[in-house]
């Protein structure tokens, strides 16, 4: 098994170093906190001659997204990163990238959205882009952030569907921990440095992309995107397995299921199961370990981590959650209705006997602690949305 030694890296450095190993041809970006460190590092690598890509400084996020769209349309592997308002400014282009079926990969260093102004973490930004037709990954820690970027390119290029890797701003982007970067030797096989299948800008073979279509064809395009994105689940699991094997990753301890879409951590017979995405899962794992160690073990807790918000892992949810008490941790709201993660869970489990508790937590950087999680286990279910204090 190929071995690589771990380095102490924050997620921004780890992502930049990984992107630099993926034979990306074009990087374009516009700075925004807390994402900036990623593209700063890439710009530095390029300036030092270590990065073999073209770095295009854009005048806005709209331009950055448009530049990577163009690069991808020419069959070039392209990358950008953003956060918050920057993602919103890209949004129009994000829909176009997906509609044109271009395999762009972007990092979203998740941050709240104004107003009021706030630079800290929550999932409001990505939730505004959830229907754009992208694969949406969520990383729990820096290693997962690295791994998901490699997988994102692999899947995006196989499916001609763009992919976004969500990495909690500050909590991961500014936090250092041990990370193993993928080794160039096996990366070459996993993600060869060839032109992608989406090579449309070819003067010898002119094509028109995304031109005006009538309702019938438009319907066909949208339906196909939906079908392909939903069917991606199988390929995600397959490539996840391949990736784990090549990288020599050890199986995660105390885990019932861990595939490309979800991870179930804790005892199989847990009566209380948290559902969450991103870095907060780490804190929930720690709280659960503490809770399950107590002497009276009739009520145990577990956590189901959602790694892909799109495609939504309906089959996994329905097989894992039947009649437990399910506490959904949302880091975003949908004012006037259930928060986004909760409404997905409620829909997926509508035919089951689960008792749902919807929690909104961590908005605008509110720290979610072990104490919060332990209190939630003891809080009675009332099926209303609980805002964590």
């Amino acid at each position, binding site marked *: 098994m190929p071995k690589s030694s771990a380095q102490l890296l924050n997620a921004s450095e780890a992502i930049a170093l990984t992107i630099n190993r993926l034979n990306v041809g074009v990087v374009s970006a516009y700075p925004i906190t807390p994402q900036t460190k990623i593209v700063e590092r890439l710009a530095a690598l390029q300036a030092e001659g270590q990065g073999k890509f073209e770095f295009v400084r854009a005048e806005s996020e709209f331009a950055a997204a448009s530049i990577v769209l163009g690069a991808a349309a020419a069959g070039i592997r392209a990358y950008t990163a953003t956060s918050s308002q920057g993602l919103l400014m890209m949004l129009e282009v994000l829909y176009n990238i997906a509609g044109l079926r271009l395999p762009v990969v972007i990092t979203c260093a998740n941050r709240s959205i104004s107003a009021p102004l706030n*630079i800290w973490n929550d999932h409001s930004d990505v939730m505004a882009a959830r229907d754009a037709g992208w694969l949406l990954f969520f990383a729990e820690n820096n290693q997962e952030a690295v791994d998901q970027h490699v997988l994102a390119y692999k899947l995006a290029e196989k499916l001609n569907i763009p992919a976004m890797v969500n990495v909690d701003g*500050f909590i991961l982007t500014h*936090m*250092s*921990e*041990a990370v193993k970067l993928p080794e160039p030797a096996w990366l070459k096989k996993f993600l060869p440095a060839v032109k992608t299948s989406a090579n449309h800008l070819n003067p010898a073979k002119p094509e028109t992309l995304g031109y005006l279509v009538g309702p019938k064809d438009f319907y066909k395009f949208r339906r196909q995107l939906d079908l392909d994105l939903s069917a991606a689940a199988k390929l995600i699991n397959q490539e996840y397995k391949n990736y784990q094997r090549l990288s020599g990753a050890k199986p995660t301890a105390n885990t019932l299921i861990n595939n490309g879409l979800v991870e179930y951590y804790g005892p199989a017979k847990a009566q209380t199961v948290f559902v969450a995405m991103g*870095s907060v899962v*780490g*804190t929930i794992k720690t709280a659960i370990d503490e809770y399950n160690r107590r002497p009276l073990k009739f009520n145990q807790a577990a956590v189901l981590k959602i790694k892909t918000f799109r495609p939504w892992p309906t089959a996994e949810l329905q097989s894992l959650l039947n009649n437990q008490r399910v506490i959904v941790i949302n880091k975003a709201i949908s004012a006037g209705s259930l928060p986004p993660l909760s409404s997905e869970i409620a829909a997926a489990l509508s035919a089951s006997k689960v008792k749902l508790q919807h929690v909104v937590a961590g908005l605008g950087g509110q720290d979610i*602690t072990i104490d919060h999680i332990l209190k939630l286990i003891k809080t009675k279910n009332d099926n209303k949305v609980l805002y964590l204090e």
Partner: protein
Amino acid sequence: MYEIRIHGLGGQGVVTMTDILALACFYEGKQVQAFPHFGPERTGAPVTGFIRLDDKQINLKQQIYSPDLIIVLDDSLLDKKVNISAGAKTGTKLLINTKRPSETLSALVGLPAKAISVCQPDPALGKSANIFILGQAAKLYNLASLNNCSKAVKLKMSGLDKNILKNNLNALKQGYA
């Protein structure tokens, strides 16, 4: 789990020191997590750095509220109403760069005198005072060997002027003595 909080003022190298100390502990084979205070940093304003150490994988992502060790690079923080002993528990240690005697400090910060260690980097060390204090902390609290501290300083300062690296390695040696 062992948690460290480092206080200083913007420009004194809190973030650099956090990174280097974390790296030295990483070289010791420990599981490490290190992060700055999440927010805008300004020269002269109070800055905080955090390190979490363990023998097993650290999943926890919450902020550090009850540190086992508090390191203070500048005692003027005591006069700026920064509560440097916030969250201190039984057994929490304090290492502070100050000329004040530890008995007065004890009353000031509300920690037992025996939990407090003071250090005074030679003013000639200038900007490298943070690395002197890093050396003191690494030795006093058995966090990392001098060798691993040097290795960490070298890696983090490899891109800088050779004299800067030399001064910092010298500061480290003095602090570790």
